[in-house]
């Protein structure tokens, strides 16, 4: 039942042109900023938006084939979709919401209700079946929406920012549950998100989409460790510096040099994790081979640390403890020295 899609959609100034393949049981995360074309892609896969060109096939079935003039309408596609704000029908009980898809596909009322109740139990809200969606919490509603999408045993599951409407704590729980259900789901899953944590936690593979095109693809670990665009680097909290490798030194495109542990040659990316950057009030003595003068641009609380954005010859992000931040007397514009060990710098080919 694997998904193979290669589509082009013209949306005014934005052209979305994407190739995707998702195997059975695989979860593909489509990660990207707002307006990158992620939701457009899902609408095309769901049949809610006709592509301007290309093909969409799931298993042996062709759902869209623009050159051949094939187009299966949304309601004839065997898919389940979970929307950001769940879109449970407000006039139906939770059970009837989950049973809706079975009823439209011809299942009798008692059978559809029984299957719906089974699924409500599986997502852990068996006791809420008689309620109206308006009386559910965000997490409960999203669980019901997942049950509604999965109850029809779809070949393709589409998740459109399924966790972004939830508060931080609920999100954590629902994400863990979603991970379990995705693990049990035999079909292909496409998850659209702008949250790298969702992508890392839920997906087997990640494609990063910017301005309608794939800019990076790989496993979550690979994408988070070796970002290829500023957007991804920012998402995963790395400073990304393009440059040219010359042995164990990289000459940066923006000026300056970075010492690295592994030898590198030709065009490369240098990625520096914020927690490996140390800040000093004066030029530090001793071992670090990378020491640069910098200036603080901004500081924002980030968990138990303060994330400092630094400007200078080498633009960096640095995480320092609140105590160290206070000791250094940092304020926007303060000059500081930043140091990084060569062994803490990741370098990889561009």
């Amino acid at each position: 039942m694997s998904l193979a899609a290669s589509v082009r959609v013209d949306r005014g100034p934005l052209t979305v042109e994407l190739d995707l393949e998702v195997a059975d049981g695989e979860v593909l995360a489509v990660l990207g900023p707002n307006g990158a074309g992620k939701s457009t892609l899902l609408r095309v896969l769901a049949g809610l938006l006709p592509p301007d060109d290309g093909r969409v096939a799931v298993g042996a079935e062709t759902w869209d084939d623009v050159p051949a003039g094939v187009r299966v309408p949304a309601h004839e596609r065997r898919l389940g979709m979970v929307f950001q704000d769940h879109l449970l029908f407000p006039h139906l009980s939770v059970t009837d919401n989950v049973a809706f898809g079975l009823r439209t596909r011809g299942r009798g009322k008692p059978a559809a209700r029984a299957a719906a109740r089974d699924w409500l139990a599986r997502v852990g809200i068996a006791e809420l079946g008689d309620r109206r969606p308006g009386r559910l919490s965000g997490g409960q509603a999203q669980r019901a929406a997942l049950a509604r999408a999965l109850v029809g045993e779809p070949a393709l599951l589409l998740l459109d920012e399924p966790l972004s409407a939830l508060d931080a704590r609920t999100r954590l729980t629902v994400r863990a549950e979603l991970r379990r259900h995705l693990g049990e789901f035999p079909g292909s899953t496409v998850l659209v998100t702008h949250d790298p944590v969702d992508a890392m936690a839920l997906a087997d593979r990640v494609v990063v989409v910017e301005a309608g095109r794939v800019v990076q693809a790989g496993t979550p670990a690979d994408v988070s460790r070796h970002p290829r665009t500023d957007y991804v680097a920012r998402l995963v909290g790395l400073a990304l510096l393009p440059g040219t490798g010359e042995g164990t030194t990289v000459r940066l495109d923006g000026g300056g040099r970075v010492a690295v542990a592994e030898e590198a040659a030709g065009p490369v990316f240098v990625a520096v994790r914020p927690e490996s950057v140390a800040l000093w009030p004066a030029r530090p003595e001793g071992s670090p081979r990378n020491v640069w003068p910098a200036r603080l641009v901004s500081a924002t609380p980030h968990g138990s640390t303060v994330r400092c954005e630094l400007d200078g010859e080498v633009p960096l992000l640095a995480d320092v403890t609140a105590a160290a931040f206070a000791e250094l007397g940092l304020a926007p514009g303060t000059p500081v020295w930043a140091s990084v060990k060569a062994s803490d710098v990741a370098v990889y080919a561009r």
Partner: protein
Amino acid sequence: MRRRSEPGVPLPLLVPAVLAVAFLVLPLAGLVLRTPWAELGPQLTSPAVGQALRLSLVSATAATALSLVLGVPLAWVLARSRARGRSVLRALVTVPLVLPPVVGGVALFLVLGRQGLVGRWLDQALDVTIPFTTTAVVIAETFVAMPFLVISVEGALRAADARFEDAAATLGADRWTTFRRVTLPLVAPGIAAGAVLCWARALGEFGATITFAGNFPGTTQTMPLAVYLALQQDPDAAIVLSLVLLAVSVATLLLLRDRWLTRAVR
């Protein structure tokens, strides 16, 4: 939610505002004051009044039913279809809203009258004559009142979140199933409000009815026509009949306010 009232309304605004209230309320107060309460019982139970009242209720209800059957699908087309010329269509549909009802009556007569475009064919082929029948009353009222329903339902459809319909499509519902099982329940409050508005307008219809259906007691003489006729022969009867219509209007308003207009769409 009460806003803090600013002290002192400027005089140039206050005086006209008070005059406007007086202008709108005084005639109605006068109607109530002049009501011959002693005659109320006998007047209301007189066969002529009962006949007009019954005819009014039946024809307004039939016109509302007809408007629902035809108007809700039209509202859907206006709100949801991507067909070209929708703005032209909407303009055409709303013409009866601003058209003097008498003109509507004349137009209906020209089309459905015995010599009319459609009426001639109905008369010859089917032996059906429409003008000056109760059917004509219902048609005249529908012509005048349906646009109220269409506009109101179209507004409700536009306000309703169309993504619910997308969700229904991903759950295997074709557009007709989606309309029945999702869209219709979602906009039900809007449809109800539109139906009440339509019914009230049909109940008060005068111009198109008297032009197209005439003024025959028992078959086409509705309450407004009866009021008009009574005013010339028996003013007290006219007042009583007017009071009944006023009561129905106020009841309609209350119904709309309490049941639908203030109930926010979730």
